[in-house]
């Protein structure tokens, strides 16, 4: 009986979603569009980055590195400068975004000492781009070093030292994948769920459901299921895009990432449930989700503005934003490459939040119409 009820009801929920093609396209399309948009800001910057070179002693080693940089799609060497005083003007006049500074007698030092230094000075006003291209440049130099070792069988070492100008802490790097995840999941789970439940109230069908032998908890479960599925699809899309299109790797444990994400989806669904018990019209539900959920997620979660830079009251406020904890956990796992043990605090906070929210919304959910 219960299974039959659930199946009938969940099927109905899928009909609702699948028939409303516009909404479904938007829901499935948003993550793709956002990831591509954010992603292109990153990739276009990296291609053909203008490079200036300071090589006090122009020898065969510096020349080969310069050629390799030039040969890659990422860099165009546009200027040779001759002393350190010229570095600032190069950035100021936006002639180049990266200055490669070799030690003097570079080739000689490799040969005699086995160690030579090269400094990469990056314009980090766009931190995403700066990380990427300095990472590429470091790789190219490491590539040359390997070639050199293969040729001569000697353990040569070229140590590139990366220096970020203008934004040395690199806040904002790789921020958007966790940020988009945090936002999309809240959007789908909380907003769509609350609207779907409130729609039944508004249309009068909720009354029919309450009069039926279907238990309210099953009604809720069935309403949540399709949005849960949709969230999982979105999670997968975002992961695939970020790994294969943006090349943002999942450095840490994928399982931990899934666990934390499920926890966050759960919190979002509970939030949506709570919103639906507080309102009686779809518009109100949308407004509450939009104003009370989306905006704090965007502004206070650390997705756009770093939390450390906020005034203290806002920092406290950010603690009650689930997305803050989720984004932080995703960054730790995806970017820093750590596992579950590193995000226990975040996972704990999310778990606590979900318990409180579920308790609150079940208490508020009106089993009886009065």
């Amino acid at each position, binding site marked *: *009986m219960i299974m*039959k*009820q659930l*199946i*009938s*009801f969940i*099927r*109905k929920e899928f*009909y*609702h979603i699948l*028939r*409303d093609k516009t909404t479904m396209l938007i829901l499935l399309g948003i993550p793709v569009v956002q990831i591509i948009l954010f992603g292109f800001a990153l990739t276009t910057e990296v291609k053909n980055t203008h490079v200036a070179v300071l090589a006090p002693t122009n020898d065969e080693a510096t020349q080969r590195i310069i050629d390799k940089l030039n040969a890659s799609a990422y860099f165009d060497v546009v200027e040779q400068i001759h002393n350190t005083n010229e570095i600032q003007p190069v950035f100021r006049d936006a002639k180049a975004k990266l200055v490669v500074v070799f030690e003097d007698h570079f080739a000689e030092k490799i040969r005699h000492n086995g160690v030579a230094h090269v400094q990469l000075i990056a314009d980090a006003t766009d931190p995403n781009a700066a990380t990427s291209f300095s990472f590429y440049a470091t790789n190219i130099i490491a590539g040359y070093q390997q070639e050199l070792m293969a040729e001569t069988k000697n353990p040569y070492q070229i140590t590139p030292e990366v220096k970020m100008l203008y934004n040395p802490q690199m806040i904002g790097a790789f921020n958007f994948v966790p940020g988009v995840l945090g936002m999309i999941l809240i959007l789908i789970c909380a907003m769509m769920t609350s609207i779907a439940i409130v729609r039944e109230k508004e*249309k*009068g*069908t909720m*009354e*029919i*459901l*309450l*009069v*039926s*032998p*279907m238990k309210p908890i099953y009604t809720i479960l069935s309403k949540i299921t399709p949005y849960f599925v949709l969230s999982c699809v979105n999670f997968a899309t975002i992961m695939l895009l970020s790994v294969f299109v943006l090349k943002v790797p999942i450095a840490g444990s994928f399982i931990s990432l899934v666990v934390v994400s499920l926890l966050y989806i759960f919190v979002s669904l509970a939030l949506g449930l709570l919103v639906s018990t507080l309102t009686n019209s779809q518009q109100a539900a949308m407004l509450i989700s939009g104003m009370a959920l989306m905006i704090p997620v965007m502004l206070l979660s650390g997705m756009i503005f770093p939390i450390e830079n906020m005034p203290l009251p806002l920092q406290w406020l950010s603690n009650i934003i689930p997305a803050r904890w989720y984004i932080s956990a995703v960054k730790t796992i995806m970017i820093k490459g750590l596992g579950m043990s590193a995000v226990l605090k975040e996972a704990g906070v999310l778990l606590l939040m979900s318990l409180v929210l579920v308790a609150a919304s079940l208490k508020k959910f009106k089993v*009886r*119409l*009065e």
Partner: protein
Amino acid sequence: MEDIKQHNPAKVIIAENLTKKFGKFTAVDNISFEVEKGEIFGFLGANGAGKTTAMRMLCGLSIPTGGKGEVAGYDIETQTELVKKNIGYMSQKFSLYDDLKVWENIELFGGIYGMKDAEIKEKTDKLMQLLNFENERDKLVGSLPLGFKQKLAFSVSIFHSPKVVFLDEPTGGVDPITRRQFWELIYDATSRGITVFVTTHYMDEAEYCDRVSIMVDGKIEALDSPKNLKKQFNAKNMDGVFQQLARKATRKAD
């Protein structure tokens, strides 16, 4: 307590001193009545008289503050689940899903009431024939005219063969011809032994009922067949009866 326990199959609805208070406000004040199997029971009253509150208590949606009630042989306070299984309900708001096809709506409610797939299919075929809906079967409900929808909503509310069906102003905004057809469906249901409990604003519809109760300020002021009521109040029609009683009301409409 004792006489309510005595199961009487002929009495499908029993209300005994049923009362509902919201704070200091008494929405339903000590009402008692009985409805027999297969009867069409009209439940009349001005807006705010307490009709809807009384009906919700009988449907198991609202717990009475005082008194007792029994629907389809089950206690409305302690056996709400069994009550719900044995009643149908159609509200004044149109209550099917617009973005679902006709057969999908039927299938959904059949499923919610735990009917078997084969039974749902067989009864759907029959119903489509009865309503002359064979061509509409695969259409979205939202694309149907209001009269069609109302008839379908009623048919869905009795699809699981409940003992009682509660109709809350079912014919609001429907043209007279469709209302006529709607009442034919109601008569058809009673002929199959379904008891009909209906609230309405249309006094001509009150004439179609076997018995009518008129609520004023939370109390039942009159209860009899339309014929007897007209005699008692010396009125030409039910509207005359209603006007005389409703004038006494002190409570404002909500």
